[in-house]
């Protein structure tokens, strides 16, 4: 098998790389050992929520603050990607999201505060249009929990929201009476609510609870693929606004984005091999020539490409393997600087954890380089997403933003042989 670009990893960084490369007319393969982290993510694309990470105040204008970040943190992935490409990647994604049938909205100049399943507010930059509902609206706010779902507690959400909004938020429970003899997760319920009779049960109960005309916050379970139909059906029946809140994994909002994006790429001609880890890689003179995978019958399958994108999802995605005193990069064996301590702080510390900052060091072409010698290690490999060093996505709220933008740049560079003509 021979491709122009092979993307290793099927999360948002990998998809974004594949998108950028296929738009350049390249033949692209995405290969991944698992489903990718996108399926369990919130589905929001947050550029930057807090800066510096220890700040307790959310970033109001993320595009503006990028300038300081890039100057002050030259090792941050955003500094390697550069502001122009960051903006381009976000804007391209907005267009593509329309085409993939899951339209997103938002502005790089203004973060939006979204309620979380704990009733905190989290800043994000791009979000599905179906969630474009301001929590500061004049309508009455109601938080609805579903008895069958063990991962959402409306009173807890409502009271935390009250503290922050300084206004009344009403919690309510509904019981879909599905009589399924196990605890249900978000995905189970989202499938169930695609059925009209289940959905009508939900609507009837909401009508009985007098929540017409309200802003209803509800866990994101309103359909897996037919979410548009489910949401508009309920909104029209109640003359209300529905705002879905992303849930603990499995996250339906992450699932929708992952599935829609993947289908879109497939339609553009991107090929996928999911479920196969890279067995080994072959190098020649600072280039990766080919990678191989073991197929089901244990035969070695060789895959050649001009250029590769490494978007393996860091520690969570198993792109980085943590050992007691060593961290291994899973595909190419790239060197990783090991922090002296893996964890320094309390769990909830705003400093982040040293382990999270570990990753592959790259130059501003996203090529891996040796942090000691500054020598470029592989000239046709471009690294993206959580496998990159230099940031802790969880405290600064930049995970999907870094994935989207570094993936985009890695894909472009891979399509153009490592040189961008700006």
């Amino acid at each position, binding site marked *: 098998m021979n491709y122009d670009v092979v993307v290793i990893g099927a999360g948002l960084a990998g998809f974004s790389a594949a998108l950028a490369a296929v738009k350049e007319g390249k033949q692209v393969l995405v290969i991944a050992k698992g489903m990718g982290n996108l399926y*369990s*993510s919130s589905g929001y694309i947050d550029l930057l*929520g807090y800066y510096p990470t220890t700040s*307790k*105040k*959310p970033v*109001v204008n993320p595009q503006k603050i990028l300038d300081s970040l890039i100057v002050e943190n030259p090792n941050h992935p955003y500094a390697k990607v550069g502001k122009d490409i960051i903006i381009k990647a976000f804007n391209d994604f907005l267009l593509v999201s329309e085409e993939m049938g899951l339209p997103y909205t938002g502005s790089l100049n203004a973060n939006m*505060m979204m309620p*979380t*399943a*704990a*009733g*905190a*507010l*989290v*800043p994000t930059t791009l979000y599905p249009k179906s969630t474009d509902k301001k*929590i*500061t609206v004049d309508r009455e706010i109601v938080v609805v929990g579903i008895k*069958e779902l*063990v*991962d*959402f*507690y409306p*009173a*807890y959400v409502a*009271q*935390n929201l*009250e*503290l*922050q909004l300084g206004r009344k938020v009403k919690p309510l429970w509904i019981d879909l009476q599905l009589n*399924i*003899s*196990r*605890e249900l997760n978000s995905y189970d319920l989202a499938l169930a609510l695609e059925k009209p009779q289940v959905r009508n049960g939900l609507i009837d109960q909401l009508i009985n609870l007098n929540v017409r005309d309200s802003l209803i916050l509800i866990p994101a379970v309103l359909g897996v693929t037919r979410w548009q139909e489910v949401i508009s059906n309920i909104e029209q029946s109640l003359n209300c606004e529905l705002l879905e809140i*992303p849930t*603990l*994994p499995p*996250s339906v909002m992450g699932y929708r984005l992952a599935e829609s994006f993947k289908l879109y790429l497939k339609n553009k001609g991107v090929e996928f091999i999911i479920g196969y880890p890279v067995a080994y890689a072959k190098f020649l003179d600072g280039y990766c020539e080919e990678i191989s995978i073991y197929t089901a019958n244990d035969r070695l399958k060789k895959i050649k490409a001009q250029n590769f994108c490494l978007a393996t999802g*860091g*520690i*969570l995605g*198993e792109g980085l*393997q*943590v*050992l*007691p005193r060593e961290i291994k990069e899973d595909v190419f064996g790239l060197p990783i600087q090991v922090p002296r301590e*893996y*964890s320094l702080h*309390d*769990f*909830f*510390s*705003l400093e982040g*954890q040293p*382990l*999270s900052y570990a990753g592959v060091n790259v130059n501003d072409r996203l090529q891996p380089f040796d942090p000691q010698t500054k020598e470029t290690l592989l000239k046709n490999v471009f690294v993206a997403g959580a496998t990159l060093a230099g940031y802790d*996505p*969880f*405290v600064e709220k930049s*995970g999907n933003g870094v994935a989207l933008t570094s993936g985009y740049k890695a894909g472009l560079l891979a399509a153009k042989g490592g040189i961008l003509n700006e």
Partner: protein
Amino acid sequence: MNNKVQVVVIGGGATGTGILRDLALRGIDCLLVEQNDLATGTSGRFHGLLHSGARYVVKDLHSAEECIQENKILKQIAPDCIEDTGGMFIATKNDDPGYIDKWLAGCAQAGIETKEISPTELLKEEPALTPDVVKAYFVPDAAVDGFTLAAANVLSAQKLGAMARNYTKVIGFKLEKNKVCGVYLKDKYTGKEELVECQYVINAGGAWAGQIAGLAGQNINVNPDKGVLVIFNHRITNRVLNHLRPPGDGDIFVPHGSVTVFGTTSKVTNNPDDTEATLEEVLELLAEGSNLIPDLKNMRLIRAFAGVRPLYQPDGGQLGREATRDFTLIDHSQLTGLEGLVSVVGGKLTTYRLMAKAAVDFVAEKLGVDKPCITHQEMIYAPVPKNGAKPGEYLCQCEMVSKKMLDQSIEGKGHFSLSDVRRLTRLGMGPCQGTFCTFRATGYYHQSRNLKVTEANKLLKDHIEERWKGSKPVLWGQQAQETQLTRGIYLGLLNLERLESDNNEL
């Protein structure tokens, strides 16, 4: 509360709670005080092995005999607290064959039943074991839950009118004419101090017994000895696994619920609160354990912790592994002339009931009570039994903890933490280490107990921090990945780290 009792028991471990129950069964009015929650000292920080005694037969026959006697009694009276897994001793080709004969002779002498099984047969039943097994024997070891045991003792005593107060620290003794006649207590939550008068105090403070006796001006030589343990995310073997060799580091594996506890080390420490394991200690343990379980280093660790053995040496004798596991009753009137105080030190969890009996026999005589000990005849029960809830009622699927169990675990409690709940239910002790159930239990309690939302937030954060503390020394492999998932959920998705402080500009 009643500020006068006959006996105050200090320490809510197995020994202290066992004493409370024994006192209550003999009709003696008593109060137990514990500085933290029940079994948060050594009784909750050990491998959870109910010894058959086989480990001690060569060096310490007396301890071995006590162990097998108590092993049989506890299996009878406390089935809620024990999983009768059985145990095995295995010798590998690298072990001294001469030791096996000495060990077998010791077991016979102590009355510990052993049953040989061929290595081939054993490997069929326990495939994780090293193929280098040359000799293997089954013994009546079992897994014991120290948290449940302490709570069951207290429940049994409370039914007879005894009182127990956790999160209550002894800050001093009331002394009159060289006699202890009361204890000054401080409530950890409210900060309130008070005096409880009594005729006798039994110091069952374990590794803290020296500090407590110090408050009465007494000097007793308790040598805290630190042992490191780790927890794997699955049951590696179905029976307790012991290495058939002179007792050493890293030679005990105990299956508990859905996990395995593996240990230990032995290192003298001067601080009984020294309960953090280091990376080096964990790596040393794993290297040792790999001799019995070859694949050990690839298995997923979820936690490391340390417990402190309360070893006692009257004349500053042997330390660490060489120190006796026997217990000692210290009559302070013999030692310094101070009346009204007895300290019970040393020993181990398996023989807690015997220690309690000895202490209560002594005190009962002083009080003129002639009722005999009957703790070996009466059953004790877990306050939160595993009950078959309806499907849909479980909030922790790793350890199958239902809503009803969450209710039962905090019955009658004003203050509680999720750690208190965990000790009684195993909530958050399984493979996900609280990643999912902490959130669920918080949401559940917030509504069912009508908590303020700030209290609920604290409940959640304290538990996540507590689980984090234990995973820090084992942050590699799949646990590093799991930790990132937990961070992704609580920081990334829920944004809880800024919840308290955030005045968001919308």
